[in-house]
């Protein structure tokens, strides 16, 4: 698909089916998302599998998707955030466009949130000893783990956690309490994979 840049969207025919084609990168690789009528799922699936077969294309599951997105520190709303979270605390202030002329849902709340520095910050972390903490584990003195995975690609255990905003700096040591034991982890505010986004935008 020529000239479809990262985060572009357009309508296109794929295998003869009119789709909404998005170039996005939740898993951190060059990727496209196809939206189409549910009743055409089977023929589209069959066409993609057949067309991709000579290139080694394979379907992948949600677990792989979740790990890959965590390597990019791409959040899952509802897992890494809750009703108290704001985009400012979740390290994605760029996503809010308060200079938009139009009104939008949540504008009032976001204008207020933008004026106050968030007390907590969502950061990446890397475990020191390879233990995979349970999601929901406490970050001492105040915070919690929202996602944690062993990454075969990176050879490390990584995750996302809310920590006091003052602790949101690269290399900072944090303590995670899981099952009555304490574990040491290191804060990483940049993606673990392709931190410059070259793969995604390339």
């Amino acid at each position, binding site marked *: 698909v020529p000239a479809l840049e990262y985060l572009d969207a357009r*309508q296109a025919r794929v295998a003869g089916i*009119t789709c909404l084609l998005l170039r996005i990168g939740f898993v951190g690789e060059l990727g496209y998302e196809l939206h189409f*009528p549910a*009743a*055409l799922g089977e*023929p589209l699936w069959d066409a993609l599998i057949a067309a991709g077969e000579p290139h080694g294309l394979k379907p992948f599951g949600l677990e792989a998707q979740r790990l890959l997105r965590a390597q990019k520190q791409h959040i899952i709303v509802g897992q890494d955030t809750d009703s108290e979270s704001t985009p400012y605390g979740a390290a994605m202030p760029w996503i809010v466009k308060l200079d938009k002329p139009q009104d939008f849902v949540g504008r009032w709340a976001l204008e207020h949130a933008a004026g106050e520095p968030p007390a907590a910050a969502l950061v990446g972390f890397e475990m020191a000893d390879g233990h995979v903490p349970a999601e929901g584990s406490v970050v001492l003195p105040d915070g919690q783990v929202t996602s944690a995975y062993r990454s075969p690609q990176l050879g490390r255990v990584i995750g996302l956690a809310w920590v006091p905003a003052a602790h949101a700096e690269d290399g900072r040591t944090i303590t995670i309490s899981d099952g009555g034991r304490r574990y040491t982890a290191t804060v990483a505010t940049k993606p673990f994979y392709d931190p410059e986004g070259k793969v995604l935008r390339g």
Partner: protein
Amino acid sequence: MTLEFLTPSGAVAHSPMERQARAAGARFEVRDGWNVAVEYPHPERQALRETAGWADLSHLPKFEDGVDMTCAYAALLIAGPLSRELIARFSAVDLRASAPGDVMPVSIARTPGAVLVQDTDRYLLRFGAALGEYMWEVVGDAGGRLGAVPVGVDSLDA
């Protein structure tokens, strides 16, 4: 950007109940871009006259606020003298007071849906497409005890 991509085009569309219809012996024909169960190898018209039959009408166009929702919903027509009795087995809706043309938002087998009353013995159920397989099972389970059978769309014109 238009919403053209919401409308099925370019390939044959499939109902979420197609596998169950095929397992029940349905013969399919492509109509209006959909693979439609048109006929079954059992006495369909007799069931429609004496008990009840259910037909997969998921291919019917469905619009909400001008947006094509055809693929978001699946639909089953329940017809025959026992159709109200059959629906009563998986929905609390009281159809006795309804009149042809009524559209009633109802809970169907504990999922949000709607009933379109076509006649006193003919009701179109609309529910989420992703629940199609479940709904066929519910209707089949309840219908089997009443002697109801799946029927093809061609049996409905009689």
